[in-house]
């Protein structure tokens, strides 16, 4: 059964052509009457950092939980590392690392003990367990605090330990759910460096975030998800270009208005026509996000 479903969703594995490491085909997830994910389809290629962007409650975490086997889709097919998730959960779990949004470390245990526990659960051979854990603690800069209980860790340290824990069994695919939420800018940059280092080593990364600059600077490709639907997909550059490379921003009675143009001269001409203060700048990913998902805060919209 495993053989038949293996590689069903994957592309050809070769050095020249990147393999498909994750694939969703028309995936739906309903919780009663609420549709959390509505017909999402996309692929993530081997060695890619793929970002899922979306407002609160858009369906990002549900999508990641379906890919990492924690939640079952209502309908649709999901493939990870060449295995169909349905029916091959153990095989998929062996090949994925998950950094959850919430710190779910054993707080009574030390950092090292958390990693040992993960290694035991994932059957990392004893001969390489100690070496791997030592290397990972060095990698995330926690060697000196490894034997302290996790309850004494700061938010940034706990997050770095979560990343180290996800890597103990050498997964080729890593899921990061809001990896830098609530962290200070310095720690956030450290986490970004870690993600880029892991990717440089060949790891495929899927991260969810609503920090636009995080997606812009880290991700090779970005999918924007809203109300459970994938509403845009492409490289950050492609998405920005789809609106226009240049943005004219000005304030009127309705609030800040933005107009997009494909050339700087068009943008400049338009700005000169306006009899108010204007800013001409390059379009950023946040512009794309706001244009596609709307300006209203989701908590307010829900009310």
């Amino acid at each position, binding site marked *: 059964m495993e053989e038949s479903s293996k590689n069903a969703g994957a592309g050809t594995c070769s050095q020249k052509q990147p393999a498909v490491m994750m694939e969703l085909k028309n995936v739906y997830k309903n919780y009663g009457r609420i549709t959390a994910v509505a017909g999402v389809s996309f692929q993530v*290629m081997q060695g890619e950092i793929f970002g899922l962007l979306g407002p609160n409650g858009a369906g990002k975490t549900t999508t990641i939980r379906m890919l990492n086997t924690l939640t079952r889709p209502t309908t649709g097919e999901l493939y990870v590392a060449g295995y169909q998730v349905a029916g091959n959960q153990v095989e998929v*779990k062996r*090949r994925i690392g998950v950094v959850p949004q919430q710190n*779910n470390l054993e707080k009574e*245990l030390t950092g090292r003990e958390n990693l040992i526990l993960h290694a035991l*659960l994932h059957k*990392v051979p004893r001969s390489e367990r100690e070496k791997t854990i030592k290397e990972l603690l060095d990698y995330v800069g926690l060697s000196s605090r490894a034997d302290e209980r996790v309850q004494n860790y700061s938010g940034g340290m706990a997050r770095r330990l979560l990343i180290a824990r996800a890597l103990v069994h050498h997964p080729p695919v890593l899921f990061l759910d809001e990896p830098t939420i609530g962290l200070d800018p310095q720690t956030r940059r450290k986490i970004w460096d870690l993600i880029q280092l892991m990717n440089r080593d060949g790891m495929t990364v899927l991260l969810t975030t609503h920090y636009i600059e995080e997606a812009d600077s880290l991700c090779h490709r970005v999918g924007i998800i809203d109300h459970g639907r994938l509403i845009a997909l492409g490289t950050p550059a492609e998405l920005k270009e789809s609106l226009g490379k240049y943005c004219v921003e000005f304030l009127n009675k309705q609030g800040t208005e933005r107009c997009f143009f494909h050339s700087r001269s068009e943008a400049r001409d338009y700005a000169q026509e306006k009899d108010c203060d204007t800013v001409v700048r390059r379009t950023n990913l946040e512009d794309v996000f706001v244009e596609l998902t709307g300006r209203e805060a989701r908590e307010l919209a829900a009310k």
Partner: protein
Amino acid sequence: MKQENWPQSKLETIGAGPAGISAARRMAGSCLDWLPIVLAMGLVWRRRWWRFFIGGINRPLIFLAIFAWNLGDPAATATDSYLGFLAPGMVVMAAVSAGYSDLVNWFTLRRTYFRVLDEYLLAPISNISLLNGHVLGAAAKGFVLALLVFLAAHFFVHGFFMPPLFFVQLFVVCLTFACLAVAVAMVAGGDKDTLMFTSLIVFPMTFFCGTFFPVEQLPGPLASLSWGLPLTASVYNLRALALTGAGHLGWFLQSLGWLIALYLLAYFLLKLRRED
């Protein structure tokens, strides 16, 4: 895109899990998949041993001490004193308290609040291993605390028997209530639900299933109801073993039946939750 940096050999070895681990070894290891869970529970409990000890044995010890001082018989023997009747009941109370109460809280809070359970759910282990690890970890702790209460009972009353079947029966009680804890935690929406179930069902059970007095003294329907609960046969068998050295096969099989039934219930509820 950096796929050129990702050698195919690395995908094959690393992608199959930790490098070098064979399928045969994985198969052999899968029999012991529950062990890391027991280890984790043991490590957490070791760190907070005083809290668990006090929480687990204080109530049975207080009951024993109160009755011992109230009855005022320092030469009480197991077979002809109320304390001798009471002590096995208190042992069971400690086993239930430590085996059930801690696991139901552990499981519920970890599932709904701390999300620690996700770490176990994401491990490549089966539902049976997940269940076995939690049940064995909690039962082992319940067993240790119940034995401590039994040893403490020797300060108040002497002449108990300790045949091997006494320990087997005690472990069956611990396992049964650990299974019940998992089943309750799978149904409960949060810690308030588990607290309600514990207060309404489990706590009264520790009083009305022959722990303090024979169930025959209960009004007719309540006596019948009591024999339909998982604790009564175990308490009676433990008492028979502790007071006479001989057990009752019917009671033992009845408690074993409860263990099997609650294990299966816990397994199906766990499976259902994971498929949700």
